[in-house]
């Protein structure tokens, strides 16, 4: 397996164009697992970690090569919380947002924040740059709209005010893939957004719950109950070896309620 250590976007795009069997490699924490299990045998890999453009991190943009460890210290509290729950220190030191997007696992811990905040995924190829809303980029469980020869540049993040929080339920205290995860944003006017992971084929927004609770400026406990109930109704979890659908549904309601409570004044 040939490895190209690209130091510029140009170099990476060239390498991808030259070999149609090439795969982008960032931290390798997903990719190398697939290789080790024999699920994937790319003819070559193009490492993008040395490309300066992919390291941008400011109030409106997260480069694809930004690591969990960097996000832990980034400008968004909920994103930082999500980053802190990912893997172990070793994984966080190398795992990137671009990789989390590239894998597009329903359990990807970076994705609920992006979904809640309506981030756009910025893609670059020889044909130019395009920007897709998160839900158009993630097309299903572990599938994306990433085209041949395309690289994820990063995610552009709209401005946000108010409170935000992230929570995850896993089978142990660290190094656990989410059984359910959620990110909630609430601005001072009460407008609320909630996105959930691991409870459907891809990250999802609980729109009815959002609409209902956004109308409540200072929600009563009955309103909070109703919000949580709507979330459990909207999610579409499955049974697997980690959890049953019933518990996932319950957990989604519980963490949604807790996040909301944390984001109330």
């Amino acid at each position: 397996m040939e490895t190209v250590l690209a130091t510029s976007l140009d170099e990476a795009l060239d390498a991808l164009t030259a070999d149609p069997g090439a795969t982008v490699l960032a931290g390798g924490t997903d990719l190398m697992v697939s290789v080790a299990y024999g699920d994937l045998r790319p003819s070559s890999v193009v490492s993008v970690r040395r490309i300066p453009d992919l390291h941008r991190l400011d109030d409106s943009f997260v480069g694809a090569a930004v690591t969990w460890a960097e996000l832990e210290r980034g400008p968004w509290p909920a994103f930082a919380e999500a980053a802190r729950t990912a893997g172990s220190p070793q994984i966080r030191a190398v795992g990137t947002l671009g990789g989390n997007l590239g894998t597009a696992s329903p359990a990807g811990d970076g994705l609920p924040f992006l979904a809640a905040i309506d981030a756009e995924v910025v893609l670059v190829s020889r044909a130019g740059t395009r920007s897709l809303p998160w839900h158009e980029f993630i097309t299903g469980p572990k599938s994306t709209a990433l085209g041949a020869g395309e690289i994820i540049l990063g995610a552009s993040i709209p401005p946000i005010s108010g409170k935000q929080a992230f929570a995850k339920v896993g089978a142990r205290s660290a190094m656990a893939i989410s059984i359910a995860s959620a990110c909630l944003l609430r601005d001072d006017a009460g407008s609320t957004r909630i996105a959930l992971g691991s409870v459907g084929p891809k990250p999802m927004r609980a729109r009815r719950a959002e609409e209902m609770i956004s109308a409540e400026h200072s929600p009563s406990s009955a309103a909070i109950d109703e919000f949580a109930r709507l979330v459990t109704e909207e999610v579409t979890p499955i049974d697997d070896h980690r959890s049953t659908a019933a518990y996932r549904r319950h957990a989604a309601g519980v963490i949604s309620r807790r996040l909301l409570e944390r984001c109330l004044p």
Partner: protein
Amino acid sequence: MSDFTTIGFNERKVDGDSLVTGKPVFAGDLDLDHVLHLALLASPHAHAKIVSIDTSRAEALEGVELVLDHRNTPPTRYTTAGQGYPEPSPYDARMFDTTVRFVGDRVAVVAADTLEIAREACGLIDVEWELLPPVLSIDDSIAEGATIVHPEEDASGIFDAARNIAGAVEAVVGNVEAGFADSDIVVETTCETQYAQHVPLEPHIAQSWMDEHGRLVIYTSTQVPFHARRIVSRVLDIPVHRVRVIKPRLGGGFGVKQEILQEDVLGLVTLRTGRPARWEYSRKEEFVSSRTRHPMRVRVKVGATSDGMITALEMDAISNSGGYGTHGLTVLSNAGSKTLPMYNKAEHIKFSGKAVYTTMPVGGAYRGYGATQGCFPLETAIDEVAVRLGVDPLELRRRNHIRTGETSPLFEELGEGRKGVEMTISSCELGKCLDSGAELFGWEAKRSRPKDEGRVRRGIGLSIHMQGSGIPEVDMGAASIKMNDDGSINLHVGATDLGTGSDTILAQMAAEVLGLPLGKVIVLSSDTDLTPFDVGAYASSTTYVSGTAVVRAATDVKQQVLEVAAAMLGSPADGLMLGDERVTSPDGQSVTLAEINLRSLYGADQKQIAATASFVPSESPPPFMASFVEVEVDIVTGKVTLLDYVAAVDCGQAINPAMAEGQVEGALANGIGYALMEEMVFDGSGRVRNADMARYKLPGTLDLAPIKVILVESHDPTGPMGAKSVGEIGINGPIPSIANAIYDAIGIRLTETPFSPEKVWRAMRDAGIE
């Protein structure tokens, strides 16, 4: 006791430096020339017959040397269990059988120049299957008209093959029915435990080659080198003297390496090809094709008087042995024999059980060995008795537990799958364990605080435990010591250090007897050519059984040393003192051990100062433990968080306290994992769905409570230097202690492990708490 010079001190492990500096000390570190790599073709079916198998495409692949399957391998029936001979496990396995009995069972093995080729060749083997109905649970196995897992006629030692019973046992003392009738209260509960794997960091690995004399050498990560030699010799039909088994350092075993899973095949490959061979299980194979903990369903009934005396005990266990009966009967027996004797005031005791075949992964030896499964219902039922009587569960146990000088009729009635051995408890400091544990834990204070009523509720629980120290009248350990011209000794033991540190504590014992610093003891263990026999590392036997052999051999050597010194000093031997590497006479004259041995080897009356000694125990003094835990239950999510854990252990004299504490801490972590999260999950056809460490959850440090271990002062008069054992007992604590603490927190008795958030949540929902 206090005048020990090395016993009771935290000596550094004799193999510590080589391990931490990464010396090539493990079985896989050996780099052999022209080695063949073995790969396993494992059964994809839970239960099927091989109608035909075609290996021609595999054999034709460049680099493939040999393909083994049922057609070209010995049909001898045997058990993979590395136990004393004759084994109490049925002979129901073949190297390669025509029927497979679990997903992961052996179908064929390919030996090739590289692992990649061997694996590729496995994919080229064509098997025509006749699928048989799978037997996926205890209920499937015992159902009327159930499919018979072992109908073959040449199997032996199966209790009742027609009813899928690998082994069965019954022990009766008094009359339990009458006992219950006379009791003021009777509590009954049935608990179920799940499939779990040992997950040693180092999966099974072994290598083999022919030595310069044409003898087969097997270099293997095993807990039972001598059993491995015996079983390989029998299965391959070659004399014992043609086989040498060497055990290097081990990366953990926890019981799973008390099985002969690779040595037979490696031996055959090397014999057939003349080439060295190497076989290493992948992590997935370790989960799927090796051994597991027997899941059990255990019913317990406890009768007590209103003043809190336990009068009658009944335990009935069904163990899922999986596709083969290895360790089935003995693990089952220990569910009762290593739990019920603690309550020896009961005059009426009945234990019965059966180990049944299914077409699921095979149970094996796993730390705790049945006691872990048995103590769950027993200790929760005892807790319930305390609750119903309004007695502090600590106090209830104080009133009822066995004491020094007492016995239990069950010791004689129930052994490992057969009658046991009568014995009087030579040391029991359970009282001290309960007192010191309760004090450090703050039992009184925590018990008297008001109950939490919010979303998060705390609870406390305790349980008491015993194990054994070897299998009486079965286990045997031997040691040889010879002394060198600088006064150092070579200590050769059959005992098998699987990472526990037994080489170190055995060296400490020899050093103590001979007045040597530990650095002057050169330990060699577990080489069937070079060391005397030992049954191996299991049944918490090494400290007690092998240790006594070491003390005996050292005592004999000491006597020889004193006799030479007597001649040198002109002073009678029985008045001489040995210590500080010299022998001193009553008048203050002394000679050093070096001088003594120089004389003995080169000077006068020349002879090698050396001795060999053996030990077979006539009893098995149990170590005891009181286990205390505080938990916090989130009643909305069902999540159980451990806040505090205290284990007070009576292991007799701790030879090396830091290592003994390490054993308890490790066993508790192991048990906490089993109590809270570890579980092999299966699909509807018997396939493991989480056969890797990403999906099979072992606890991390964040999942453990602060664990505090107390080793109470204790001295067993029958043990070497007063020692008993400590390797297994800790694992038994977490399940019942945590179950009792959850009950204290939320008033629900959980009867199925692991206590995952989902299970706790469901139990609360069923009970109407939300």
